[in-house]
């Protein structure tokens, strides 16, 4: 008799101790980043932001100002962000503003955030978003199927979405808060990575549930990326999303990357932040570093909210 698929996968990839992971990541939070290294880290973080708006009330106008913010976050020599991240219906509006200018368009397709639509509908949504100009597709996995142990189904859906993406980069959202345990997060990471292309992403969260990216689930996922890379040579990228609102948090996530995956992952082809309010805090801290004076929040244009 063969063991159930999830059991087999867990045996193959090995367990995670929750307390141990949390002790490990606590050490990242005690790193003290000063002066030039702080500037470097803050600028790097800016380039990694997927500036996101995912609201029912999003309008072409809202997306337009988000795109302006993405291209030119603040006066001075601030770099542009990695991408804007919008609903599929907004892709064509975003394309008008950023296409060809260095900021990519990411879109959350596949009946985001629940994923509870027929596969056919989800695939059609992906194709449309790509046709409208999306460079990157953020999909959600079928958590229900995962928790039921229907791993082949989960993986097969990822493959089909990947095919629908064409040349667009795929980001697979595990929705870690619904998988709940670190063991599940590690298992789901491997499940996805095994059918991804080099440069595709695994991503923590939709930002639409109570718990989002944490240093803990980020660590489990980047360790999975590391183990997968060492075993197969395939470089998978990582995107924590939701809940990262401060520059201080972002630097802690980057320290985790530096000390777990090393220098090759310290760029926006390999690591992203799914965030909106984070950007202004990064800018605020950069200005503080530049001017030596603490900054007020209203100095920075408020073109991104939520997430």
């Amino acid at each position, binding site marked *: 008799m063969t063991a159930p698929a999830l059991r087999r996968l867990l045996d193959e990839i090995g367990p995670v*101790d*929750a*307390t*141990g992971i*949390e002790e490990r990541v606590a050490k990242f939070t005690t790193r003290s980043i000063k002066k030039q290294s702080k500037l470097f880290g803050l600028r790097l973080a800016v380039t990694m932001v997927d500036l996101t708006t995912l609201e029912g009330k999003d309008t072409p106008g809202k997306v337009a100002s988000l795109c302006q913010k993405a291209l030119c976050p603040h006066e001075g020599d601030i770099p542009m962000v990695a991408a804007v991240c919008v609903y599929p219906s907004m892709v064509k509006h975003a394309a008008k503003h950023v296409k060809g200018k260095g900021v990519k368009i990411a879109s959350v397709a596949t009946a985001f955030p629940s994923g509870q639509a027929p596969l056919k509908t989800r695939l059609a949504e992906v194709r449309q978003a790509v046709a409208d100009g999306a460079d990157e597709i953020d999909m959600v996995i079928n958590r229900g199927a995962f928790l039921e142990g229907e791993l082949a189904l989960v993986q097969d859906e990822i493959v089909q979405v990947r095919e629908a993406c064409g040349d667009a980069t795929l980001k697979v959202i595990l929705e870690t808060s619904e998988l*709940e*345990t670190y063991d599940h997060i590690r298992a789901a990471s491997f499940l996805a990575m095994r059918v991804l292309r080099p440069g595709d992403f695994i991503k923590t969260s939709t930002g639409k549930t109570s718990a989002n990216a944490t240093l803990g689930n980020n660590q489990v996922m980047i360790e999975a990326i590391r183990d997968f890379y060492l075993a197969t040579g395939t470089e998978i990228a990582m995107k924590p999303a939701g809940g990262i609102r401060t520059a201080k948090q972002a630097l802690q996530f980057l320290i985790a990357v530096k000390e777990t995956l090393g220098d090759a992952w310290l760029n926006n082809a390999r690591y992203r932040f799914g965030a909106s309010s984070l950007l202004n805090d990064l800018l605020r801290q950069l200005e503080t570093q530049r001017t030596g004076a603490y900054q007020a929040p209203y100095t920075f244009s408020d073109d991104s909210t939520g997430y």
Partner: protein
Amino acid sequence: MTLPITKTPKCYVGGAFIRSESGRVYETHRSSGEFHANIPRCTRKDVRNAVEAAAKAGAGWAKRTPYNRAQILYRLAEMLEARAPEMAAALKECRRSVDTTSPEQEVRATIDRIVHFAGWADKYEQVLGSVNPVASPHFNFTITEPMGTVGILAPEDAPLLALMTLILPAITTGNSVVALASHAAPYPSILLGEMLATSDLPGGVVNLLTGERKEMLPTFATHEHLRAVAATATQEEATALQQGAAESVKRVILHDPKTDWFSSSHDSPYSLRDFTEAKTVWHPIGA
């Protein structure tokens, strides 16, 4: 009248009855003054052999369930009760003028003490152990474990009660024992060995030697495999014991030579503590 068959006194070591490897004996006399028996005069080599036997038996004894240890100790009380008159007679033969209690009282007190400790076997852990409320996500508890093989140097007086008072806490907690009996009154320990042999106590858990204390004390002190020594000792003996013990960082438990062995203060879980190591275990809590 037929000539009675006299018993050859032998030491109880490794579950067998042995003479000293030295082949030497010393005479003991009845309270009337007449010759009683030739007692083995054990040597440091006998101590070594007994420690080997004890170490071999100890692991299994420590793994017995506390309930099983309790029943075996109670069985020992049953054995002593059944042969109480014989033991009292043996004690009577080595009575000294200073003794204020009767041999029957000593046998009775010994039986009661055995029963007392039999009852502790499956309870002391709940008194001596603890769950520790640490300030981190860990489950943390402290349990006791036997030390291993321990040495006992019994006093000259109360040759049954004192010997058993020192042995009982050691074996209740799962240690194995090498004990040296009273030199002046060794015969009760010879009888005790016979009772131990029929009590279901695995052979080698308690080993009883007789002979000259000063010949064997240095070995008790320095033998590295003995993890503790409990004794009543003169100032000079205590110094020698503790000095010898230092090389192997041995635990030395000294009892006041003037202690009243009949006192209920000896019925205590804290004498069990003397023969245990505390082990603390940590484990994270998380899903």
